[in-house]
């Protein structure tokens, strides 16, 4: 897989959010040298179940969320872009 620049998000805040998620995944969850982009499918090949749980824990701690089982679904975790959308919605809902 090759690195490509993140597609610009609608707001700078969104881009920063995605960058933080990507940084965590790269440093904590992927093997050295492995790189992904915001649209790569995290759940098919890249992350195992332990890594996905760590990602969910990171999201909760970093953004002050409580991800419930109802939210811990493929539709919210499929890719960094999708996950950022979930974080934004969840933050808005809890604000």
């Amino acid at each position, binding site marked *: 897989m090759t690195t490509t620049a993140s597609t610009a998000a609608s707001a700078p805040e969104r881009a920063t959010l995605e960058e933080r998620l990507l940084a965590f995944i790269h440093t904590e969850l992927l*093997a*050295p040298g492995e790189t992904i982009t915001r649209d790569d*499918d995290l*759940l*098919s*090949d890249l*992350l*195992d*179940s*332990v890594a*996905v749980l760590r990602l969910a824990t990171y999201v909760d701690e970093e953004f002050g969320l409580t991800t419930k*089982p*109802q939210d*811990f*679904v*493929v*539709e919210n*975790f*499929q890719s960094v872009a999708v996950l950022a959308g979930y974080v934004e919605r969840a933050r808005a809902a809890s604000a």
Partner: protein
Amino acid sequence: MSRLMHHLLDEAAARRPDGDAVRCGGDALTWGALATRAHGLAHRLRALGVRRHDRVAVFLAKGLDVSVAFYGVLATGGVLVPIDPKSPPQQIARILDAVDARHVVTEPRRAGALAAALALLAEAGRQPVEQVVGLDADGLDGLVDGLGVTPPACLPWSVLEHASSAPDVRVLEDDASYVLHTSGSTGMPKLIRHTHATARAFVDWAADEYRLTADDRLSNHSSHHTCFATFDYYAAARAAATTVILTPAVMMMPGSLSALLESEGVSVWYSVPTALVQLSLRGLLDERDLGALRWVLFAGETFPPKHLQRLRAQLPAARFSHVYGSTEVNVCTYFHVPSQSTAGGSDPEHEVDPESGGAGLPIGRPCANAEALVVDDELEPVPDGTVGELLIRGATVMSGYWDDDAKNAHALVRIPAPGGFERTFFRTGDRVRWLPSGDLAFGGRADLQVKVRGHRVELEEVEAALLRVDGVDEAVVVTLPDGEGSLALHAAVVVAERLQADPAAADGIVGALRTLLPPHAVPARVAVRDALPRTPTGKVDRRAVRRDATSPDTGETT
């Protein structure tokens, strides 16, 4: 009339051509469509030179193509060698080399891993693979440049034609049908050879015992290189039923999984307990209607009673069975959990000790056409109720480990029988005893083989991999409870002097391990130590390592 594995496809396609054979992620293949595709692949593989007894590796992620590849290979008279799609290149290389696979069936997103495996083989002066199905003609170009690999000829799936019948090939029941792989203590995976007869014996028994019908929908959890998949795919075929393949994404998200079970109407489930514990804890079962789920089979490790009890209350309509047997024997004993079970934890006979493997539920009684012996170290039967090693004989037992006389001599023991004959038993390495009920109880392992969330892992294999990492001088791996009814791996290592002050040493080791071992065999924690604790005789003191790993103050890095 011979009973071959690929006859299962022919019979299901004749019986229910328009019924779904496999479903995955919203796509489906009917039995009729599966048959014409598999036969098309078989003719193409024959044209590419595959002959009876030739090994064909199948390296695919879960998906509809898996069953096409399975039956396509079997119908050539060749031997199917499914490779774990999560295998690191080193393991892929070892398997391809050991079975001398000249043909590989794969897909574009596995090209990188395949290329890396071919490069490792080329480095060692080996080049078994000549033809690859599933990649564009230039699918490996660029990936193997400069690595000393002569790229095999590649051919994309898109050129495969459909064919109404299989190639005309003579295959006998005792020809090899497939070679599966599991963890091996030396780092070389154990390669387990089943014949058409030994595989069919299990498939036919299971379809019968679990009363599978064409209306059933079986969920497929495990990767197709495991004996779980033998049930999910082939026992389903035996009944012309439907296999619902669960993608990794769905399996990681219990809420998504339960939604899929409901929408797909899954009726029979077979997995390791861990998947069921997750479903019970986080699967939102009170919001779902899983009334179609009639039978839940689990195997691979002990089901923690409190979780089983809760799950049974959540799924009141389902029956539960504990199925036991290693890949070498498919399944050899089974225990139908009684409807008014005492397995809830109050019965001292069912106390669970995850560290030893625990007694837990009984593993039950031998399947039809199988015989169990409990023996001592001299292979003499022990009195009923005494713990001994379980030996199994019967139609479902593998023919042997691939090309490994030493392992076969140890694992397949011959016991004299009247008339100058011998009976061959498989040594399971599992410690068991007979219960007064006539069931067998599991009592741990005689060696360092453990189960991590249902995956079989030899601790020595992980230790051997650690020692291959640059800078690791000594290593030991132990298990600790993972807090959810299974075990997690913990490693303690002594590193070379230059790494001793490096705070990132443990992370680097974990990173390197990921390239050597499948994900489930990579320790959750690696602790860097000045020295490993030793017993007075100088052996590594595993108990002390374990104690050390659980004490809060160790300053470990993960």
